[in-house]
Structure formats: C-alpha cells, structure tokens
C-alpha cells in the first residue's frame, strides 16, 4: 500500500472517529453526570438526520437543516428527559436498559409512521462537495475534512464548556457529588434536563452531518449506538476526553483494519480465502479492541477506578 493511500486511510479513520465522538460525547456526559445508560441515544441521532432532511427538502438550506437537527434532537431529548428519563436516575442499570430499549421501539416506529418506510434525501451542499487536493497530492473530499474540523471544534467547545463555564463547574460537581450540588442550591433537575438536551443535540448534529453522506432511514441509529458504546467504554465512561481518544482509536482501527487485513492475510493465504477471512476479522476488530482494553484496564482508558 502506497504512503498516500495510507495517509488517506488514516484521514478516513480520523473522520469516522470524529463522527463517533459527536455521538459518544453526549452518551458519556449523560452517564457521567446522571449515571444513566441511554440506549435511545441512537434514536436522537436518527431524529437529527430526519429533521435535517425534512428542513433541507423544504428550504434547500443545509445550514438551516443543521440548526433544525440540533433543535429537534435537543427538544426530543428534553421531552423524554422530563417525561421518562427523569424517573430512571435512581433506578438500577437494568431498568434503564429496558426503559430506553422501549424508547427505541417507540422512536423508530414513530419515525416510520411520520416519514414513511423509504429513506429520505439529504445531500452535501454544493459549497462543500467534491474533493480538494491536499499537500502531497492527496485528493480528499472537502466534506470529510469539514467533518473532521467540526468534530475538533465540538471537542474544543466541550472542553471549554466543562473547564471554563459555570455550567461546566456544575456538571463536574454533579459528577462527583450529587448531594453537594443540590446543597449549593443548583436546580439539579434543570441541570439534568440541560445536560441531556445537550447530549441529544450533539447526537442530532452527528445524525445530520452523517446523513448527508449516508442513508437517512429508520434504524440508522442502532449500529452507531453500539459503536458509541464501544467508544465510551474504551475511553472510560463519563470521561469526555476518553470519548475523544476512544472514538479516534475505534475510527482508525476500524478503517485501517478493513483496508489492511485482507491484504495481510493475502501474504500467506490464497486470495479469496484471505479476502473472506480478513473481512471477517475486520468486522470483529473493534470488539476485540474493546475486550482487550477492558481486560487490561477494567474501567477503560480514562475511567475512574471502580
């Protein structure tokens, strides 16, 4: 494999990782602050994509579509937080898993009911489409570079939010001691709703951004959800930094695994068997990565020790 192709594949891995980060950041925040496992996070991703597709179809503006995705996912997130999720904080993980599993069913079929059974159209805006030439002669899609940039900006924004703002202080306090923060007079319910909506908005944004280069359809959230869980578990649940590192690790591992493994097996196997074997192993690779990380560090790379 030529160096240029390798660099391109690493970029692909980074971009995939950044998307996973947008998805995982909310999930890990919600877990860190409220101690909640939210299987329905993937549904918020889907809602973002559908909202963006609907608004883009109506207005033709991609920016408005992004705004719509943020707003719709945040609204949906706040709504379920108030109606359902709020009652789950004090429950054990088991109840949380079942309740949010039920939410997946409701969101998925509800979306199908509203938007029909066929995939929706959402495309890259003209000013972001097509490839650009990078130093070294690498042709790379501008949109994917934009995604990497957006992911980086969100990571930076979250970092500043958590370290430099009053909200961030409350979030950190909420992570370490719920009673203390209540004693400080912070309206804990509002804080939780806010954090949940923030996580939902990020998932919705990811859905809209990814929807432009993928298929906007019912059920699009679940595969991403599983990947996001892999990411936050590798990074250490509750750690935004861990989510970033985990997301990039998973993105790069997955992309390079798919690109390199079949060729690697081809070195000592006949081609079609190598292809099949390599692809099989590539599809299991991130789960193997996760198992290895957890066996070595049972609470993830940046997780608090249990």
């Amino acid at each position: 494999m030529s160096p240029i192709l390798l660099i391109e594949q690493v970029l692909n891995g980074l971009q995939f990782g950044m998307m996973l980060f947008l998805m995982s950041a909310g999930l890990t925040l919600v877990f860190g602050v409220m101690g909640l496992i939210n299987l329905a996070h993937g549904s918020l991703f889907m809602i973002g994509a559908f909202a963006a597709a609907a608004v883009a179809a109506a207005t033709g503006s991609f920016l408005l579509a992004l705004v719509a995705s943020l707003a719709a996912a945040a609204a949906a997130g706040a709504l379920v937080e108030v109606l359902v999720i709020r009652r789950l904080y004090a429950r054990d993980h088991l109840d949380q898993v079942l309740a949010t599993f039920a939410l997946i069913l409701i969101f998925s079929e509800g979306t199908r009911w509203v938007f029909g059974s066929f995939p929706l159209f959402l495309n890259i805006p003209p000013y972001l489409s097509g490839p650009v030439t990078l130093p070294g002669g690498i042709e790379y899609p501008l949109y994917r570079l934009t995604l990497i940039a957006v992911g980086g900006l969100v990571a930076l924004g979250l970092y500043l939010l958590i370290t430099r703002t009053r909200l961030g202080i409350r979030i950190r306090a909420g992570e370490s001691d719920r009673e203390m923060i209540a004693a400080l007079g912070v309206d804990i319910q509002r804080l939780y709703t806010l954090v949940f909506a923030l996580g939902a908005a990020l998932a919705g944004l990811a859905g809209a951004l990814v929807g432009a280069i993928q298929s906007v359809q019912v059920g699009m959230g679940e595969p991403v959800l599983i990947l996001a869980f892999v990411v936050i578990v590798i990074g250490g649940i509750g750690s935004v930094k861990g989510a970033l590192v985990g997301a990039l690790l998973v993105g790069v591992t997955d992309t390079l695994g798919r690109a390199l493994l079949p060729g690697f097996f081809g070195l000592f196997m006949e081609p079609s068997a190598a292809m099949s074997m390599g692809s099989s192993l590539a599809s299991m690779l991130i789960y193997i990565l996760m198992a290895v990380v957890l066996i070595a560090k049972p609470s993830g790379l940046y997780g608090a020790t249990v």
Partner: protein
Amino acid sequence: MTLKSLLLAASVAAMPVAALAEGAVKVGMITTLSGGGAGLGIDVRDGFMLAVKQSGNDAIEVVIEDDQRKPDIAVQLADKMIQSEKVDVLTGIIWSNLAMAVVPGATAQGKFYLSPNAGPSALAGKGCHKNYFNVAWQNDNLHEAAGAYANSAGYKNSFILAPNYPAGKDALTGYKRQYGGGLAGEVFTQLGQTDYASEIAQIRASGADSVFFFLPGGMGISFLKQYADSGVDLPVVGPAFSFDQGILQAVGAAALGVKNTSQWNKDIDNPANAAFVASFQAEYGRLPSLYASQGFDTANLLLSAMAKADVKDTDAFRAALEAADFASVRGNFAFGSNHHPVQNIYVREVIQEGDVFTNKIIGTALENHADVYAADCKM
C-alpha cells in the same frame, strides 16, 4: 390493514375455518412490513394486492403478516399460515435468508411457494422443489447481466465490492461469471456498513476503469453519495436494487447516469406494463418499484393458474403455474426447468424527469436468460 385485522379476528375465533368456495385459494403472505427494510415488503404487498383487486376474483383470500425481517419470526408465521390458516399458497418473502428458512419446510408440507423477490442459489439448484416457483429472478441473474454489460461497454479492469455474506459472495461470483476483463480489486464490506471512505480510497488507488457493486438498501445509498463526493469518476454498474424507485430519491443526483441491470422498468413497452404503472400510481400515489412489479406479476401468475385448475388438484395446479400463462409486466416470461424465470435482463440508466429521479432502459444485457443452477436441479 383493515383486511388484515378482519382476517385475524376471523382466524382467532376458535371455529373451524369456513369452507371456501370451489376453486378458492387461500394465500399466506409473509413479508417485511416494519423496521428498516419495510419499504420492499410494502411494495410487494401493494403490487400483489393491486393485481388481486383488479382481477375482481373473490375466490382468492390473502392473509398478510409482518416477518420483521427476522428468520425465526418468518418460520413461526409460516407455521401459523400452514397450521392455523390452512393456506394453499405462500408468498411474500423479501430476503434470501428468510426464504431459506421458510421455503424448504413449506414445500415439504405440500404447499406452493411463489417467490416475489428472493432467489437463493440453493433453491434453484440442488435444493429446488416442484412446488417452489420464483417469479422474480435467481439471485445471480442481475449480477450476471451487469457482467455482460461491462463486457459490451468495454471495461477491462473492474473493481468489485459486496457485503461479506452469502448473497454478497454470490453477487461477485455472478458478475465474474459473465465479465471477461481483469479485476483491479475485490472487496468484501461489512454487512450494514455505513461508511465507505476506506473502500473508495482503495478504488481510487487501484487503477480500475469501472466499479461494480452490490450493496442493497441503505448501504447502497451511503456508498453512492460518498462515491459521488469523492471525486472518483469511474463508471459504476450494479444490479437494480440500489437504483430502485423507492430509494432513488434518497440517493438523488449522485446516482445520475449510473447503469444498472433489471428485468423490469416502468418504460418497458407493453400494454400490461402501461396499465400497471398507471393504475399503481392512481391507487397508491407513487411510482411503482421493481418490487411492486414483482408482487404484481406473482399475483397474476397465481390468478392465471387458478383460472385453469383447482389448487386442491396439486398436479394440475402445478402444471398451470408452469405454463406461466399471464401477461407479465416485463413482457416475455417463462419458467425454466427449475421453476426460475427465463427472461430478458435490461440495462437501465438513472435519469431525472422533472423533480423525480427514475430509470430508463438503454439496452438489453442478456436475452432469455436462465440461471446456471438449473442443471443441478432434479425434480
């Protein structure tokens, strides 16, 4: 929906099933109506029910159930259809893996199965059955046609990709069976994969002159959008599944100009087809898809056999089905020795008509094409 609940209500009541009129046929349709793949099942159902409605034949009763795209649910529903509903004919399954789960058991119990979509090779070759009829295609057919088209278009170095599962492997095998050129690369993607940047990078680096892909459903949409944006502008061919009416709107301009192979298109010039396209649009308010056409043909095949024989007379009914004496919307249609279609497969190009993306036929890839597994079939 009302039909379904009525029938369900009738069947739940514990009375013996009322004897149907002489020559009546009860059909069990197991198809995917919920979840991600529901669009295909809905089209098959709508096509089928349109034909039933147009026939005005009230001796046909259809029980419809949703398999949720889960093999075990499909098997359970088949048991229900056979044991409780006492249907004569089963149909409706969209996916090969579900067909593999249901068809052998159903035909072994003496039921007819008419496949409106899936055609796994096992059921066309060694595992064929005299009561199993495929009204769509054998799985390899459209890929073979794509290979034939690649030859005629002068492609010498194809990059081919499909998901890493049996139908994906069959697709690449089918393409290579007809295609005479070399391969720049061969890649198996993950089933359900949504990001193809890595594969597209490999295509760019491979020096290929063309790309063949089989990525059904959402996978194809994702691939095409990302491919169009990547700046790689090699010609793309594929089977009709990723360019069908149902999903073409979601792909948008990214699909324009792509050649795809299909045994049907809405512009095939025959009266049956013209009437079908017009009436489907009138009934459901959307353009019919490939799957709708297959559902429509399946129902008409069944109706043609009902006109000739009583379903209780299994041999006569089978002979009537074999004759395939109905006006197919794809023109000429006949069954081969293994009860799979012998038909023309066309090359279509994606075009834009006003706001709507659709296909138009630009040539014929294979004429009166049958599948290669017929030789293994001993009925």
